[in-house]
C-alpha cells in the first residue's frame, strides 16, 4: 500500500460514527459539519499528528454508509452531511469495529505500528430501529472491545439523546458524555488535542487525554 511506503510513521486511527437521523436536521447537522472541518484544520496544525492521526467516518440513520475510508488528515475530504431518516445503531457500530479490525490488519501487513484506535459515536437519539437482540449483541461487542483495550469507545450524546439507554450499552467505565449545546467545535478541538497527545506518546507513557470540560455539559 502506497500510503504506508510514503509514510511509515505509527498510526493513531479514529472512527467517527455520526448520527445523521432526521432529528439532527438544521443547526445540529450544520454544527457537526463545521466541527469536522475544525477537527481537520486543528490536526493539520500539528506536524506529527498530521502524519499519524487517521480518520474514517461512518454516517448512520436507519442505514449507514462509510463516507470516509481511513486516511491521514490531508486525505480527508470535506464533509457535507445531510440529516434525515430514523436511527439504527447496531449495524453502524459493527461496521466501525470491523473497520478498526481491518485497519489493524493493514498496519500489521505493512509493518506499521499503531496506537489504540478510538471510535467516537455522536448521537442525538437512541437505537429505535434495532431489535433487542441486536442491542444485546452490540452491547457485548462494545464492552468486550473496550475492556479488552482493542479500541477506546466514546459516546457523545447530543440534544435529546436517550442517556439511559445509551448508558446501558456502553462499558461501565465509559458512560456517554453529554455535549454542551451544539459546541461540536469544542469537542473536535479536544479530539484533535487528544490525537496529538496519543501521537506523541512513547512506550511506557500513560496517555492522559486532555480535560474534556470545554465541551461537556454540566
Amino acid at each position, binding site marked *: 500500500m502506497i500510503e504506508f511506503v510514503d509514510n*511509515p510513521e*505509527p498510526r493513531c486511527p479514529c472512527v467517527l460514527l455520526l448520527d445523521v437521523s432526521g432529528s439532527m436536521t438544521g443547526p445540529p447537522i450544520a454544527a457537526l459539519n463545521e466541527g469536522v472541518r475544525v477537527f481537520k484544520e486543528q490536526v493539520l496544525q500539528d506536524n506529527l499528528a498530521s502524519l499519524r492521526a487517521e480518520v474514517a467516518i461512518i454516517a448512520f440513520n436507519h442505514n449507514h454508509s462509510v463516507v470516509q475510508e481511513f486516511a491521514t488528515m490531508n486525505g480527508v475530504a470535506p464533509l457535507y452531511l445531510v440529516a434525515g431518516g430514523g436511527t439504527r445503531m447496531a449495524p453502524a457500530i459493527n461496521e466501525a469495529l470491523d473497520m478498526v479490525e481491518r485497519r489493524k490488519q493493514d498496519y500489521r501487513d*505493512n*509493518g506499521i*505500528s*499503531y*496506537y*489504540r484506535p478510538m471510535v467516537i459515536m455522536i448521537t442525538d437519539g437512541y437505537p429505535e430501529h434495532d431489535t433487542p437482540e441486536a442491542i444485546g449483541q452490540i452491547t457485548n461487542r462494545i464492552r468486550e472491545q473496550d475492556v479488552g*483495550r482493542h479500541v477506546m469507545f466514546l459516546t457523545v450524546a447530543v440534544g435529546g439523546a436517550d442517556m439511559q439507554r445509551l448508558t446501558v450499552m456502553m462499558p461501565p467505565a465509559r458512560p456517554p458524555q453529554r455535549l454542551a449545546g451544539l459546541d461540536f467545535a469544542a469537542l473536535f478541538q479536544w479530539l484533535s488535542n487528544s490525537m496529538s497527545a*496519543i501521537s*506523541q*506518546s*512513547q*512506550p*511506557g*507513557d*500513560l*496517555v492522559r487525554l486532555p480535560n474534556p470540560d470545554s465541551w461537556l455539559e454540566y
Partner: protein
Amino acid sequence: MSGKDFRESSGTMRVIGASVRGSRHTRSGQPCQDSVRWRFGSSDGLCGNTLIVAVADGAGSAPHSDQGSQAAANASTDAAFRLLRQYPHPISPEALRGILIASLSAARKELSAIARREKRQINAYATTLLVAIHTHGALAVAQIGDGGIAASRDNTGYELLVAPQRGEYANETIFITRRASVAAAQTRIIPNYRPRSIAMFTDGIQSLVLDARDGPPGTPHPPFFFGAFAWLKKQPDDLHSYTGLRDFLRSPQVMTRTDDDVTLLLAVLEQG
C-alpha cells in the same frame, strides 16, 4: 568508566556509551530516564575480551524511572561481573545463560529493595533492560522491553540479536518491574560468536539505526553502524569518544527525529 580504566583493561577493546535527555523531557523538566553501564577487563580473573554492557529505558509514566533505569543497569552489570569471576573457564553455554538470568534477577531484586526502602510501588521504577555479556568467544544477550542489540562478526554487516518486545500498540512495552518479567525475558546464548563490534540502543534512537522498511523490528541500518564504528576507532581516547558521542546524540540529526531520551553504546572488541 574513566579513560584510565579503559587503557588498563585491554589494548584491543573500546567501549563508549552515552544517554542524552530528549527534548520532551527537557521541556517538561523531567530528568533523562535512560541509563547505560558497562564493565570489562582482563584483571580480577576475567578473560581479556570479557565485556558486560547494559542499557535501560525508564518508563515515561513512572515517577522514579530515572533511578530505576540506573539501578537496573548497575545491578545487572555488577552481578554478571561478580558471577563471571567465580566461574572457572571455559564457561559452558548453560552456565552463561544462568549468569545472564541472574543478572536480570539482580536488577529486579534491586528495584524491589529500593521500592521497599522508599515505601513506593515497584512500578514507580519501571524500566526496560538489555544486557549483553561477551566472554571467551561466546555472546549472551537478554532483553526485557524495547530497544535493541546489534552486532557484527566481520564488520561487513550487522544483525539484530533479539527482537524488541512490545505490546500491541506503539506506546506500549514491557518492563522489568512487571510480574514474572525475568522469566519472560528474551535471551539468546551464541557460542562461538566473536563479534568485532556490538551496539546497544534504546527505542528513542531506534528509527535512526534500524531500517523498518520490510516491517518491524527492522534490520540494522548499515551506513549508521559503519559510520559510527569507523568514527569510534579514530578517536584518540575515551574522553574524545564520549564527548563526540554525546554531541552526536544531541545534534539536530538525532534531535529532529525524536523527542525521547536516546542512548547509544558502541563496543569494538577487536580492532581491524
